[in-house]
């Protein structure tokens, strides 16, 4: 029983590990900074958005 609790506690720490680290080791202003690669991915997502809207305007 104790072993099972220990295992589940270990798994709890494993789930959301990165988010917990960001919360405990960074301030809000530090968390506001995002990687350049993330900015590129946001632009990529916007291109996907405009492509989908273009498809809608053709098929709808």
């Amino acid at each position: 029983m104790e072993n099972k609790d220990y295992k589940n506690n270990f798994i709890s720490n494993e789930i959301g590990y990165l988010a917990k680290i960001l919360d405990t080791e960074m301030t809000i202003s530090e968390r506001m900074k995002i990687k350049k690669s993330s900015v590129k991915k946001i632009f990529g997502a916007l291109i996907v958005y405009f492509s989908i809207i273009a498809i809608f305007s053709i098929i709808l």
Partner: protein
Amino acid sequence: MIEFIPVIIILAFLFETMDSCAGMGFGTGLTPLLLIMGYDPLQVVPILLISEAITGFTSGFFHNEFENVKFKLKKPYNKETKIMFTIAISGCIAIIFSVFLTYFAIKIDKNIIKTYVAVLVLIMGIIAVIRLKSRSNTYKPKLLLSFSGLAGFNKGIGAGGYGPVVMLGQIFSGIYEKTATAIVSLSEGIVSVVGVASFLLLPLITNQVLEIDFILLPSVFTGGFIAALVSPYLVRIFPNKMWQVVIPSYAIGIGIYLLAKLYIL
């Protein structure tokens, strides 16, 4: 020529922002509101499913990018990915079951089951607020499986409330709020893809012509997509302590809204 309706874009943005931040509310909140505004169910339900299918994946991707969660889509899957699949599978089975109910025209008193879900969400929200100080962070896999099953059952019988039950179920099972939100977002995307497929296959099975009106799609999709980019970032920057309060409070709000819609509005 596609048409953009500003008020629908704003509503979709607000509800999807809350859905991607708190793991609930897009379908449960926006559907009744659009129906009250005079839109037909066939103008609303499939459109929300199509939009949620795309925004769910987008939101899940950016939750991963902003490190609210770490999905691993190659074997061996990590725990977060396994939980996401568990929740998604229960939702997919539920969607197919609800199509089966529609196909065989099995009648269930909608008011009774909708009251049951509204009360369930309300009670779960209240319990989540009460246990804020005494919460245990130990992972409870069996409890998570039970709540996924319960949420799937509710969706399957057409009562909705899948997001709130599965989200609060994760929190009760010891999952970190920020990560739970990310898990629900991606699993809702998968469930919505199956939902769209069910909607398209339903007319083939029943030999009926299902005329879906796509007038709301560009507006709902635009508001939802922008929210799916913004929300994971908001989840990242605000501390988990804030989401611990926001999520159950929003669930209580949804429960009250559902009851008000049934008995007052």
